């Protein structure tokens, strides 16, 4: 459980920041998906964007946890 919180929670926070910064700068209506303009509704694009960021950040957190030297791992790794 702790392991999942350690992976999902920091990535959630960073994804929220990344989402805000990215979509303030980039208009979702101007994005292209596989060469086609994005046709989802804006709220769908924003939502998918958020989960994309969350997923990427979570992958990074997971890798950090995985690469951590054994001695410094949180006890949930038993």
């Amino acid at each position, binding site marked *: 459980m*702790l392991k999942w*919180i350690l992976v999902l*929670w920091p990535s959630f*926070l960073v994804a929220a920041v990344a989402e805000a910064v990215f979509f*303030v*700068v980039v*208009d979702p209506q101007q994005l292209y998906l596989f060469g086609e303009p994005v046709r989802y*509704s*804006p*709220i*769908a694009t*924003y*939502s998918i964007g958020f989960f994309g960021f969350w997923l990427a950040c979570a992958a990074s957190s997971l890798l950090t946890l995985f690469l951590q030297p054994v001695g410094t791992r*949180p*006890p*949930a790794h*038993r």
Partner: protein
Amino acid sequence: MTEKGEVRPVSLYSARKKLHVRSVSGRFARWRWALVWLTQILYYGLPWLTWNDRQAVLFHLTERKFYLFGAIFWPQDVFYLAVLLILSAYALFFFTAIAGRLWCGYACPQTVYTEIFMWIEEKIEGDHNRRRKLDKTPMDGRKFALRAAKFGAWGLFSLWTGFTFVAYFSPLDELLASLTTFGFGPWETFWILFYAAFTYAFAGILREQVCEYMCPYARFQGVMFDQDTLVITYDEARGDPRGARRKGVVPASVGKGDCTDCGICVQVCPTGIDIRNGLQYECIGCAACIDACDQVMDRMEYPRGLIRYSTENALRQHWGRKEILRHVVRPRTLIYGAFLVLITFAMIAGLAMRTDLRVDIIRDRATLAREVSDGQIENVYRLQIMNMVERERTVEIRVDGLDGATLQEGEPIVLPAAATGAATVQVRVPADAAEPGSHPLYFEVSVREDPGVTVREQTTFMLPR
């Protein structure tokens, strides 16, 4: 017994014990409740306000506009958002340096919602003793009914919170229309449930664990502390040795300090710590223990303040209130304060000087320059003009910077309220007006209805060889 030399991993994490927090009343609890009301009236109320026949506060995701009462902010205004964030950070530093975790104890949504959820819990399941007893009893009809009522009330409250959250991003009137039929869009539904689930989990279940394990601020707030920071402190010199005694007994006569060891300060603590062990990182500075202890001191007819807001220096040097207050002004708070004032003024000045018209000039990419009749050279530009106020306005365009520069089609452009208009304009210059090459050219866009509003933007004019 472990054998010699054998290493066994020791868990530093203890299993969490569910806390049954005793409710507290008093002056700091009143402050907290005042902030609960203030922040939540704002949070739940703001989406319902209208302004200029639209929602007063709305981060309109579809239109990519942020309506804030009379003002509209566009993605181009992200600068103000950045300044606002810096401002909030300095405010946090400033208040933390003065009086510790004021934010955590009184205004943080985690504290505010936990307070509301605990209030609901107490109304349904009774006080902390009844709740503890209820936890231990096996499931029966009564327990089931109480639990269902509590979870149901929490759930409804969370859903309302989630609905309000979405109403900040998607217009409330559209959401309300969907509410009657539950015909929300799939993503609206998802975010209402998502936010509701977070509210429920954080305020109903996780509570103090959010502060202890999940909050980044809780981890670094200590660096803003110094020996003159007001923190919630147990006066050990006055309180120890602790022990029970009858009301009105002079502590010295029984060889004890003022602390009656009643343990109420621990029972009211939302993080379950004993403040008498000194400042701990779990302490969110809610001052519940101060309220609780003051009531006990009143009952014992001892002076209040055995647990109080005090500083490390004050405790060591036995300072009074006056000296503590004098030490609030010190380099750290002055620096934080100076930044706070400076950034606030910069923000206000920036907002006051913000023009409500924005012009972007894009040179036509297809042709740099072309020769037209009577030996004139023409360049084509595309002007994007953003009308940032909520009324229709007419703009006039002029050019200068090059001798003889004229604008074709001088027709005024009508911009709808709070919208961007585009115009393609041709500028002609006599071929012998200047050397071949690129020259600065200025567009001046002015609003017919507001003579003061003029935007001057630079671009380039190409004269071919």
